[in-house]
C-alpha cells in the first residue's frame, strides 16, 4: 500500500487517507498529530468520533498544543463542553449540508494548514455511503482551493470497505500506520 510513513505522506501529498490499526487507533493518531502540530500552525479538526473536549485532554497528556487546533465537534456528548471552548464550534452530525458549509466557512476564516476529518466512516451509522462520498469530494475541492492539506484517518480494518474504495478515488495517497 504505502512505503512512506504517515508524516512523510502528509508532507508530500495534498490529501492523504490514513489507515490506522484499531487496537492503537487513538494513540497512533496522537503520535502523528504530535509531529504534525510542530509543522502545521493551524489545524482544523473535524471530530466525528469523539468530543473535541476529550481530544483536547488527550492532546494535553500527549504534549500537543491544543491552541494550534480549531475543532468542529459533531458528537452530541461534546456539544456543551464545545460551547465553553474558544476554538470549537458544534454541528449536528446528521446535518450534512450545514457541516459542509461550516467546514468551508471555517477554512476560509482561519485558513488552516491542515484539515483532519476523523473519520468519515463513523458517519455510515446514519448516512448513505454516496452522501458521505459527496461530502468528502466537496471538502477536497475546498482543500484544493485553499491550498491546505487534508488528512482522513480511518480504521485499517475498513481498507476494503466500499466507502474507502470510493474515497481513494479523490485522494493523492493512501498511507498505513503499522
Amino acid at each position, binding site marked *: 500500500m504505502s512505503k512512506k510513513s504517515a508524516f512523510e505522506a502528509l508532507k508530500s501529498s495534498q490529501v492523504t487517507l490514513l489507515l490506522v490499526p484499531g487496537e492503537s487507533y487513538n494513540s497512533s493518531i496522537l503520535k502523528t498529530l504530535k509531529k504534525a502540530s510542530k509543522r502545521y500552525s493551524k489545524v482544523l479538526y473535524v471530530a466525528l468520533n469523539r468530543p473535541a473536549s476529550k481530544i483536547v485532554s488527550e492532546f494535553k497528556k500527549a504534549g500537543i498544543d491544543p491552541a494550534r487546533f480549531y475543532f468542529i465537534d459533531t458528537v452530541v456528548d461534546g456539544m456543551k463542553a464545545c460551547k465553553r471552548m474558544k476554538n470549537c464550534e458544534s454541528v449536528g452530525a446528521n446535518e450534512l449540508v450545514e457541516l459542509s458549509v461550516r467546514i468551508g466557512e471555517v477554512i476560509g476564516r482561519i485558513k488552516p494548514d491542515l484539515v483532519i476529518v476523523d473519520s468519515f466512516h463513523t458517519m455510515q451509522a446514519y448516512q448513505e455511503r*454516496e452522501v458521505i462520498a459527496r461530502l468528502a469530494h466537496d471538502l477536497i*475541492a475546498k482543500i484544493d482551493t485553499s491550498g491546505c492539506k487534508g488528512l482522513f484517518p480511518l480504521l485499517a480494518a475498513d481498507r476494503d470497505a*466500499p466507502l474507502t*474504495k*470510493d474515497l481513494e478515488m*479523490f485522494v*493523492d495517497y493512501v498511507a498505513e500506520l503499522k
Partner: protein
Amino acid sequence: MAAKRIMVVDDEPDILESVSAALEKEGYDVVTAGDGRECLRKLERGKKPDLILMDFFMPGMSGREAIERIRRDPKFGGVKIVYMTVAEFRERGLQSIRDLGVKCCINKPISVEDLIKKVGSSLRK
C-alpha cells in the same frame, strides 16, 4: 446494421431522460438504469450493451463498485465504459479508472456535443 446499444446509469431521472433523448436522436438503442444494482440486474437479464455511461455518485452502489463488478464478470468482456460524473478524480483515481479500462469521463453538467463526440469515439476505439 443494428444500432449500437448504450446503457445509461444515473440516479437522476432528468439526466437519464435528457441523455437518452440525445443518444436516441443520434440513432443509438438506449436502455437506462437508476443505480449500480439495477445496471447489474439489467446486464444479467438483457442484451449486452456496446457501451455503458456510468455515473459515480449513486445511492446503494457507486459507479466505481458497479464497474469493478462488471469487469470481474467475463460475460461482460468487451463492454466499453465511460464515466459521466461531477466527480473530479485525482491521479490515483484516474489510474484506477484506466486500470479498469474505462475509456474517458464526461463531465457534468453534460454538454450534448461533448456527449455525442465522446460516445462516438469510445465506440470506435
